[in-house]
C-alpha cells in the first residue's frame, strides 16, 4: 500500500497581476512549491475574459503541511486586506509525494 499524508490544499483565484506576489509569498513562507493555471471568469470586480494580460485570472495552488497553514493564510488575508480581489478555497487533501513512496523498494 502507498502512504498518504494529510495536508492542506489552498486554491487561490485571483487576477493574473497577483501571481508575482503569490509566488513571493510561497517562497517567503518556504512552501515546497506551487502550481499555476490560467483562468478566466467573472465576479464582483467584473468580467475577466482572459484575452489580455489585464483581464485574466489565475488559479494558484499551494499544498502546505498543517503546521504552515496558519501563517500562509494570514499572509493571504493581509493581501486581501489591502483590498485585492481574491477568492481563497481551502480543503483537506491526502498527498502522495516521492518521499512517501520508498524509492529503493522495487515495484510491487
Amino acid at each position, binding site marked *: 500500500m502507498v502512504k498518504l499524508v494529510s495536508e492542506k490544499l489552498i486554491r487561490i483565484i485571483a*487576477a493574473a*497581476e*497577483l501571481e*508575482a*506576489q503569490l509566488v*513571493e*509569498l510561497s517562497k*517567503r513562507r518556504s512552501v515546497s512549491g506551487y502550481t499555476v493555471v*490560467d483562468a*478566466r471568469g467573472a465576479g464582483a*470586480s*467584473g*468580467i475577466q*475574459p*482572459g*484575452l*489580455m*494580460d*489585464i*483581464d*485574466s485570472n489565475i488559479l494558484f495552488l499551494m499544498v502546505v503541511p498543517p503546521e504552515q497553514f496558519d501563517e500562509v493564510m494570514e*499572509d493571504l488575508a*493581509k*493581501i486581501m*486586506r*489591502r*483590498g*485585492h*480581489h481574491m477568492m481563497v478555497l481551502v480543503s483537506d487533501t491526502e498527498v502522495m509525494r516521492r518521499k512517501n513512496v520508498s524509492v529503493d523498494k522495487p515495484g510491487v
Partner: protein
Amino acid sequence: MISNLLIPAVLFFVIGFFAQVIRSDLKFPADLAKALSIYLLLGIGLHGGMELAKADFGSAVDAVVAALALGFLMPLLAYAILRWLGRIDALNSSAIAAHYGSVSAGTFLTALAFLEVQNVEHETYPIIMLAIMESPAIIIGLLLAKFSRGPQVQNDNDAGKNGHSVVGELLRDAFTNGSVILLLGAILVGVLATPASLKKVMPFYDGIFMGVLSLFLLEMGMEAAKRIGEFRKVGIFLVGFGIAMPLIGGTIGLLVGHSMLGFSVGGVTLVAVLAASASYIAVPPAMRLAIPEANPSFYLTLSLGVTFPFNVIFGIPLYYEMAQWLAGQAA
C-alpha cells in the same frame, strides 16, 4: 468622411463588436490576442526607432517634453472632473484618471492605418511620445491615491514586505511594465541595429503589420462589446465621461501638436489621439496592484468598452478633420 472608416482595421473592429453583440460563439484564442499586442508594440517600436535614428534631436526633445506634460496634466484634469463633477470616490477617481493620462496603442495604430490609407504624411515623434506617456500617468495615479488614502499608507508599508505596495515598488512597476519595455526596447533596437540587419526582419515587422493590426482589432471589437454588459453597473455619468474625456483630451492634444510642436496635419492628429485615448495595457495592471480598492470593472469598462470604440469609430476621423481645420487657420 464615412469612406475614411471603410478600412479593414475599422471594419474588422466592427465585425468583432457585432459578433459579440449578437452573442455569436466566436472565440478568440487568448494567446493569439496576447501575441498580437506583443507583435504590434515591437513593430511600431522598431519603426519609431529607425525613424528616430535619423530624427533631429531638438524636435525629439520637444516631443518628449510635450509627452511628459500631457502625461502629468491629463490625469489631474480627469481626476478633477471625476471627483467634483461626478462625485466619484477618491480611489476610483485616481485609478480612472491614470488611464486617461496614458495612451492606447491600439487607437494610435488605427490612426496610423487611417492616415496611411489616405497617404497623409506624419512626424514620427508621436511614436516616441507613445512610449513615454504610459508611465507619468501611472505615477500621478499613485500619488492621487496616496493622498486620498492617508493613514492606510502606513499599513501599506507594513505589507510592503509583500514587495509590491511600497510606492517605490510601484514607481518601479510604472517603468518596468511589459508594454513599456517592449516599446522602448524595440525603439532601441531600431536605433542600434545595423540597417542591413534590420532590413532582414522588416518583412515580418513591417510587411504584414497592417494585416496583423486588422486581426488585432477584430479581437478588440469583441473585447469592447463584452464590456457593454457592465454599463449599468458603471453608471451613466462614467459612461458619459468615457466619451467626453477623449473629446477634451483630443482638443488639448490638437493644440499641443499644432501650436507647441508645430506638427503637420498627420502629426497633429496623432498627438490628439495620444491625448484622447485611454490605456488598456500598462495602466490597468499598475492600478490593480497599487489601488486594489478601486473596482477594475470601472476603469476597464471605460477604457475598453467606451473610449476605445468611440475613438476608433468617431474620434480619429474627427481629430483629423479638426487638425485639417487648424492647419487651414494657420495657412
